[in-house]
């Protein structure tokens, strides 16, 4: 068991996470309470779901910068469809998820058909998406939402807050998809060596399209969750979220060059950032210092992970 842990690619970030938890635990007694743990998981749920989805894209060798905008559009759509007294909740949820997949498919189609680098394509759809969110919402936040939508954001189910349940389900789904299915294997192959995968018979374009659809799907789910949490459909939501999500994925050990990565690593990366955010607030560090410290710790984590990988060899 010990061997398995030490050899795993996520050993380094796991150690970093534990260290950071111990640090904050020692600085304030409020850190290690069950309530606070629940708060942390709640807070990272949106980012985590976003990050799980984009992990596939990054492993396949691409990138998706439009996450924040897709999140906002989805949040607006679900808000519009969940107005008090209009459609049933599940209709709103279903249509929003489908919309997310459609937007992801748009990204994927552009990447596959135009050969323009994904960075540029999703930079463009990021802007388009933001505009669509503003158009649909006429620039103002949408309130008067269905009670049941709010339940998704603040309610409890089986003793756990609903967002955490979403988090767990998303984690399990993505983990299984990446490690146990043919699709997951193909994603890793394409990221590892696209040409070789093609020659070996993998339908590269098809798989590439699908990873962007997955990214869009999870961005929509994250959008639904955020809207449920703050009880408003906000066109400005999610600004910069793609950077947080991608940072979590990279910290978690997925390589930007593709071919390598785990969902577990992404989860650890998300938790790492979430713990730091929560801890710094708990000990009341000023906002400016928070930025500096966050950046510093992230660099430290990546460097330590690099050393750890080297030591393993």
């Amino acid at each position: 068991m010990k061997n398995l842990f030490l050899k795993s690619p996520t050993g380094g970030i796991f150690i970093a996470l534990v260290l950071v938890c111990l640090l904050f635990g020692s600085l304030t007694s409020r850190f290690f309470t069950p309530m606070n743990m629940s708060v942390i998981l709640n807070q990272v749920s949106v980012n985590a779901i976003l990050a799980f989805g984009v992990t596939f894209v990054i492993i396949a060798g691409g990138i998706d910068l439009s996450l924040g905008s897709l999140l906002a559009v989805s949040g607006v759509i679900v808000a519009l469809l969940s107005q008090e007294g209009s459609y049933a909740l599940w209709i709103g949820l279903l249509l929003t998820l489908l919309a997310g997949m459609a937007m992801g498919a748009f990204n994927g189609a552009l990447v596959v058909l135009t050969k323009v680098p994904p960075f540029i394509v999703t930079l463009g759809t990021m802007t388009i998406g933001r505009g669509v969110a503003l158009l649909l919402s006429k620039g103002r936040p949408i309130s008067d939402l269905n009670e049941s939508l709010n339940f998704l954001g603040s309610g409890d189910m089986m003793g756990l807050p609903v967002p955490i349940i979403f988090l767990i389900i998303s984690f399990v789904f993505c983990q299984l998809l990446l490690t146990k299915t043919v699709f997951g294997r193909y994603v890793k192959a394409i990221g590892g060596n696209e040409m070789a995968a093609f020659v070996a018979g993998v339908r590269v374009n098809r798989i590439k399209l699908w990873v962007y659809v997955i990214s869009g799907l999870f961005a929509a789910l994250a959008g639904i969750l955020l809207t449920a949490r703050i009880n408003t459909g906000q066109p400005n939501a999610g600004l910069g979220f793609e950077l947080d999500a991608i940072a979590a994925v990279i910290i978690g050990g997925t390589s930007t060059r593709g071919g390598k990565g785990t969902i577990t690593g992404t989860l650890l990366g998300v938790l790492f950032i979430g713990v730091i955010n929560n801890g710094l607030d708990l000990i009341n560090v000023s906002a400016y210092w928070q930025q500096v410290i966050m950046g510093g710790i992230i660099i430290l984590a990546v460097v330590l992970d690099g050393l750890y990988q080297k030591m393993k060899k």
Partner: protein
Amino acid sequence: MVLSDCLLDIKGLSFSYSGSSILRSVNLRVEKAEIHALVGENGAGKSSLFKSIMGIISPSDGEIIFFDQGIRGLSVREILGKGISMIHQELMLIPELSVAENIYLGRENSAGGHMSLAAIQRSVQALFDRFGLDIPVDVKVKELSIARQQIVEIMRSVSQEAKLILMDEPTSSLTDGEIQFFTRLIRNLKEAGVGILFTSHKMEEIFEFADVVSVLRDGEMIGTYRTNEIDAHVLVEKMVGRELKDFYPKSDVEVGEPILDVENLGLAGVFQGINFQVRAGEVLGLAGLVGAGRTDIGQSIFGIRPYTSGEIRYLGKRFEAKHPSEALEAGMAYLGEDRKELGIIPEMNIRENMTLGLLRMFQKMQAILFQAEKKATEDNSDALRIRMSHAGQKIQELSGGNQQKVLFGRMLLNMPNLLILDEPTRGIDVVSKFDIYSLILELKKAGKGILLISSDMTELLEMSDRVVVISKGSQRGELNKQEASPARVLQLALHA
């Protein structure tokens, strides 16, 4: 104490790692002024032997005696100090420093205080003159060719008064012209009394300048032979441990119906008017100069680069693959000419690489059937004698030959009817080459058809039943076994 001519005497050396024995009671002697080659397939234990001598790893048993002194257990520094040094495949020079500075790197403060740049240069120049080298001592190393850089690295050892120099595949990065340069230096070193122990896969150079050759196989020392008393054929037999009737195995195989029938095939701007057949049980070779379009023909048939004119009939029926997966499903297999680019997925392990294109064989709905996959790949690996620590090993850790075997394993998973092989033995060790030739023969006997593309003229002519010559995208002729000679092939290939 008897003053022997023996430089290095290794007795009963053993070494294990993670439970497997890498070296088993190895005996080896290197004499003064001897050029000693060490051969063996990858994984035979050559690098472990070198590392033991250099003190990098500690053997579990045995003696290493250098100039009548036991050196086993000494640190690397001490061993370097005794006069043994090692040249690695990757050169360890500082590109921005001059030749002279590199040679004296770390030793600027020798007996007598700090040496000035001028003094260092003078010293190095004298050394170079002694060995008849015309490399300027004051230029930056990065401005030298690879061959000359290698010489500089060797001279570094010489200037440190090395008596024994270990070299790991010293000519692997050198061109034919540069190898001559190297050979001259080696001979000069020999004359100066230096002993050289080097590993190589190239038969020609072993017999060119080595005095003796030792064969290591599966961690055991099989024997040491004088190069003028043995020939390549026997040497390879000793390396492989089996009798080779022929390095290129042949046997009479009955040829059957055409599996592939290519008619007037063309790809705009690349090749046109290609006509040939590949029948069951035969190998059709495509000969030609580099860039003639042979790779493109192979890729067109397989669906990597769809053709624009002509027709392909496969198993009697019209066939066109628009995507490699279609060709795969029909029962074709393809091996690309550069396994790094077109073959392996570096981060994935052996098993994953082997099953990549045919995962559908181990798939139930979307899920992967891991047990079935494991069994199939294990059987395959055993059959192909792939040397690995375990199937979960990353493929990039394997030697070139073993990587190629994994790719062969991939092709054979569903027993294709037609195999398109593009440079199948490029960059692999001689024993693995033989394994692949044997495999091709087995496939012929099983009634498969093989399209062979190779720049190795001997290999192509020996392995093919018929040869089609391509020049600048056009077909220049078809030759049967008797007609196909290097001269005739070249004549057609050079046709303007």
